[in-house]
């Protein structure tokens, strides 16, 4: 059995490093694939572009998706994930700095499974990541993989 994988979509290298650190701190040692913008994230999920030829049977257990992204923003990525037959069931957790009502409304409307605001306090952030890991990697039963 292959290890469960996390897709982290994050353009801010600090946030990326901190997220990875928080995961490691909380002993979540699963593989983390990092996409630095929306296009890259979609490439990975669909096996296109830089990720052409990737084994599409392997899908992330959870996608941690930032909203503010270059090129294609998080909400558009979410929309495309939900529109794609292969990826539409994947759990998506919006992980953002934003606290805007509009973002929450749009995220849930587009089918986000969760909306988490990144706290400034790293300890709180780390705690949030720990909860995320436990919940999505251990407690949550992932949807069956859809083969095309």
């Amino acid at each position: 059995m292959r290890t469960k994988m996390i897709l982290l979509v994050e353009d801010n290298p600090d946030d990326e490093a901190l997220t990875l650190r928080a995961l490691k701190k909380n002993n979540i040692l699963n593989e983390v694939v990092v996409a630095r913008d929306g296009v890259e994230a979609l490439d990975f999920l669909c096996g296109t572009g830089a990720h052409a030829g990737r084994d599409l049977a392997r899908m992330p257990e959870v996608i941690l998706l930032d909203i503010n992204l270059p090129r294609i923003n998080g909400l558009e990525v979410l929309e495309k994930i939900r529109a794609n037959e292969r990826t539409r069931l994947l759990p998506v957790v919006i992980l953002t700095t934003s606290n805007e009502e509009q973002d929450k409304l749009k995220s849930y409307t587009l089918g986000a499974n969760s909306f988490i605001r990144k706290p400034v306090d790293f300890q709180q952030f780390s705690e949030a990541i720990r909860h995320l890991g436990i919940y999505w990697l251990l407690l949550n039963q992932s949807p069956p993989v859809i083969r095309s």
Partner: protein
Amino acid sequence: MGAESRSSVSQPGRQYRKIAVVVLGVTFVVAAGLYHLARLYVLNEAERNIQAVLLTHKGLHRYIQEVMHPVFYSLRAEGMVSEKFYAPEIFSSTFIVRNQHKAYNEERTAAGLEEIYYKMAALNPRNPVNKADALEEKLIRRFNDNKEIKDYREVVRINGKDYLYVALPFLVNQERCMKCHGDREDAPLGLQALYPGLGGFGEKVGDIRAIESIRAPMEQQYYLLYIVFGSSFAGLLVLAGLLFFNARLREMVRTRTHELEQEVVERRRAEEEVRQVNEELENRVEERTAQIAAANKELDAFAYSVSHDLRAPLRGIDGFSLALLEDYGERFDEKAKDYLGRVRAGCLRMGELIDDMLQLSRLSRGEIHREEVDLSTMAGEIAEELRRGAPQRRVAFEITPGIRVLGDAILLRAVLDNLLGNAWKFTAKTEEARITFGRQEEGGKDLLFVRDNGAGFDMAYAGKLFGAFQRLHSLQEFAGTGIGLATVQRIIHRHGGTIRAEGEVGHGATFYFSV
């Protein structure tokens, strides 16, 4: 409306004066014509009257001469009447007619009519009553001088009354007349005996012996005509007057209508102007609204980016500071650790500031959804939450029940959150802390208030209380960003209300507000 309309008013006025003059002229001419006609008519009437009298008299003359005389002569021939017998009463047609006319005039007078003067005037009459007067004498001579003249007519005025006077040659001496009117010696003896003197004798054949002189009154006819013509003419005058005034009224109506039309045009123009101004204003309002909407949108974008972009680096600073402490802590001395701690504290505080600022911005934007809000219940809930957050504290809440206002529930919740939260915060160091939410009347208006007996404040700084980031206490004393009251004030203002604070250092503060 200036000179233009004034001239259009005076123009018809002049026209009417002209019309009036013309009407008067026509009236005068018609009146003159009518007078002339009336005179002709009256003259004609008088003429007819005279003719009737004359014909009657002629008839009587003829009857006497053609019927009575033969009877008389035959009676005399038969000896039934004496040769000497002569009585003008039954023989002389002149006598009989004269007296018959006298009787006729008496009858006229009795019938209320004026007499008709009638005389058979002669130059040399047998009976002095038939003697011609000066005019008649002159006429007889004129008729004799010129046999062509068959009549004479004249309107005479006697005692202010008009009469038609007519004279006609009456008797022309013929051969048979000479028996009685020729030489006196040739006349019958009886006649000679009856008329001494030369009256009625010495006539010559062919001469006009007498004229008929007759004078009929015209006045009576005039009255009638005056009435008929006068009333008809008065009627015409009234009609003309009515027509004139009708025309005048019409003109006035036309002028007034014209004025009104102009007024209507004027008013329409004014209305159009008002409409245009309105439209312009509406456009401007629309423009402004659009600008405001755009500004709001920009503000939204700004707030969004603040929320994102300012917070993200903070998290980095905090995160890596912590990473430093965690991973390399043993290499730092206490001072370095303290510094890093201060770096982290600064990050957290800035995070709070950003969050509060965002709340202030968010609450001041967006629409207000007015509904009835039970502030007392809301205050109770907030008190409960505060107690739960710090169960060790002993604070007495006094909340007047049943305070209901019209307002936005979410925004008013933020107001009470802040005010009660402040009261809670600033009574932290007060024994027997007491927080009151109530209502009181001031100047006929309902004022709500939140009162505490906490740290209070110096009234000298009351004006600064509601400014954003304004704080009257050090962070060491009381935490906070200084944005809460700014948010409260903005919400109250957006509800059209007012807010003010009263306080005294060490004796608590009261915030009065209306919604």
